[in-house]
């Protein structure tokens, strides 16, 4: 096993990787930009290396500096996390070229599967069902429009190099097609350095169901069951769970087999996720492969009892999987809520700024993978995920109730988060019934706004805080303190 690895990421995922490394006795090297000098992943790592300015291209996306940092610190492998360079084949190649194992699939596999149209062809050859769509990407808007006419609106415009909703647009009619293509192209160019787009038939309100897979270097491939990720806003997942409320044992079996076939067909190694769309008739279609650890991997960890980061490290260091498909069991139900720094009272605009107070929920069946700490200034430059709150219980209903309790006790002050929105979603009858389709938010929470119910309590709290602030007992340590040399003794000690 590696003695030291570099984590080419930031935020909650870097912290989460550090934790497993520490448990395995692996030293960790954090990297950071100027904005992140006081970030949680820097504070928790054994070493940390400043990459450069806050702009991602000068820090977290800078391959040269990352490789240099790994070499200078004697790191024996690089974990890319998710986002940033995690699905960038040039990065994986650079690591390989530098003789530093990349903790993920081989560059070739990332490249093949990152090319969405090539990925489709691979899946078709392995008899994995795919959704109708274009097989070639282009940067020509008129070609895209022609294809859309042929396929029939609505269509989905997607960046060939995309992920996480970036460079993705639903287009309902020809009038809005051109502008959608232009803006998606520019977004993709900016985010991935590649503006090429392709089209897919748009399925109305399917479910988004994905399968976690693990594959070692010795040909062993297993799946770790599904995750349902249908609750999305602006094409970003916000709530994920497992098992999927839509799943039956036979469907699970069929999709699991398709996921394993997909992994085998692409020569997959390490942890990955096969995403499917599931329509209401139980038909499922291959969507894409995420060639990295997924944001929502904790729900799988909690229901299977398997630490996926540990598995990634074992696989990358050449070890065999120590379990086969039959050994993997799903038990209980887990739900994850992504805690985004967005202002629910202001159209969910991003809400960077200082974390003045941070109290995490605790207790049975609660896990919080956080990337922030009190005193940290959440930067404007990066993803708004602050943390991921996961609850697990014996049943979906109990996990749901537990999540509501956990959300209601999760204190983040100074910046705004979507916690109030999440509480209302989790508390809704439609969520409780498991009616989670990709149009869930539009259908149920289109014009949501935060309840004013507790405003008077907040006003009361304002006054109470004011009264105690100026009435602190003189014995209270923080205010009185004992005299210190800085106050009483001036500079005689110097």
């Amino acid at each position: 096993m590696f003695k030291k690895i570099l984590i080419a990421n930031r935020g909650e995922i870097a912290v989460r990787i550090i934790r497993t490394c520490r448990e395995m006795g692996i030293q960790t090297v954090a990297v950071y930009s100027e904005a992140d000098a006081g970030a949680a992943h820097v504070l928790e790592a054994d070493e940390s290396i400043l990459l450069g300015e806050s702009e991602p291209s000068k820090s977290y996306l800078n391959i040269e500096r990352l490789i240099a940092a790994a070499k200078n610190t004697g790191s024996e492998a690089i974990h890319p996390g998710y986002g940033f360079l995690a699905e960038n084949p040039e990065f994986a190649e650079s690591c390989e070229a530098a003789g530093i194992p990349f903790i993920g699939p081989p560059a070739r596999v990332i490249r093949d599967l990152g090319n969405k149209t090539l990925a489709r062809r691979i899946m078709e050859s392995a008899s994995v069902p795919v959704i109708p769509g274009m097989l070639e990407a282009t940067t020509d808007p008129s070609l895209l429009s022609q294809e859309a006419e042929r396929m029939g609106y609505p269509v989905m415009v997607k960046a060939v190099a995309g992920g996480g909703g970036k460079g993705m647009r639903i287009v309902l009619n020809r009038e809005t097609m051109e502008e959608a293509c232009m803006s998606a192209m520019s977004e993709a160019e900016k985010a991935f350095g590649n503006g090429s787009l392709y089209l897919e038939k748009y399925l109305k309100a399917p479910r988004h169901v994905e399968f976690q897979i693990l594959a070692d270097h010795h040909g062993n491939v297993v799946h770790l069951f599904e995750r349902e990720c249908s609750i999305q806003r602006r094409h970003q997942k916000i709530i994920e769970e497992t098992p999927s409320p839509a799943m039956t044992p036979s469907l699970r079996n069929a999709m699991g087999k398709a996921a394993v076939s997909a992994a085998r067909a692409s020569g997959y190694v390490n942890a990955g996720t096969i995403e499917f769309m599931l329509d209401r008739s139980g038909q499922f279609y291959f969507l894409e492969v995420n060639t990295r650890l997924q944001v929502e991997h904790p729900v799988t960890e909690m229901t299977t009892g398997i630490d996926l980061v540990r598995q990634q490290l074992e696989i990358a260091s050449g070890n065999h999987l120590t379990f086969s498909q039959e050994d993997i069991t799903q038990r209980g139900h887990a739900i994850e809520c992504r805690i985004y720094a967005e202002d629910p009272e202001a159209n969910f605009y991003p809400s960077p700024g200082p974390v003045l107070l941070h109290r995490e929920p605790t207790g049975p069946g609660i896990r919080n993978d956080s990337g922030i700490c009190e005193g940290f200034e959440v930067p404007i430059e990066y993803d708004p995920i602050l943390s991921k709150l996961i609850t697990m219980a014996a049943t979906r209903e109990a996990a749901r109730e537990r999540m509501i309790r956990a959300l209601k006790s999760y204190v983040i002050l100074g910046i705004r988060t979507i916690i109030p929105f999440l509480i209302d979603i989790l508390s809704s009858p439609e969520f409780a019934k498991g009616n989670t389709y990709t149009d869930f938010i539009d259908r149920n929470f289109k014009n949501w706004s935060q309840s004013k119910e507790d405003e008077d309590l907040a006003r009361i709290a304002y006054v109470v805080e004011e009264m105690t602030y100026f009435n602190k007992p003189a014995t209270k340590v923080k205010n009185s303190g004992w005299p210190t040399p800085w106050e009483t003794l001036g500079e005689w000690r110097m």
Partner: protein
Amino acid sequence: MKYRLKIAEETFDVDVSNLDSEQDLRFTIGEKEYNVRYQAISDNYFHLIMNGKATEVFVARGEQGKHIFVNGRTFLVQDEDQLPIRRARRRGLAETPGEVTPPMPSVVVRILVEEGDCVKRGQGLIVVSAMKMQTTLRAPSDGRVKKINTSIDAKVAPGDILVEIEEEVENE
């Protein structure tokens, strides 16, 4: 003791007086009355019993006011009498016609027009980005771009006027 406390855009008069014990307060907020028993657990953490119902409350002092957590919701509460400058903190499009301000702290990534350009209501003027989310600021009305007060990569905040539009372009 009287306060005028603002949450979002709404301000209410808050009147507080002590009852029999130091920890027992009577509040009047607008039309409503509340009996409150409180306990300060730490600097930021309070236990309130309001009309018999217990709640845990967290408070942090920030630059713009107090951030207050109640039952999973957070509120920015400001004392009207303490707001030194009443910054017109705008949400969404500017209220003043012709002035374009970003809805969030963000970085300018593209400027789509030049000073002097004629623009149509709804036309994109500036693209700002925060936390990987891009937002296009659009013209609030037809007009001409009078002034651009920003540049690429500038950090901007709500209330900053990035573009000024002259509305009277009827005769052109």
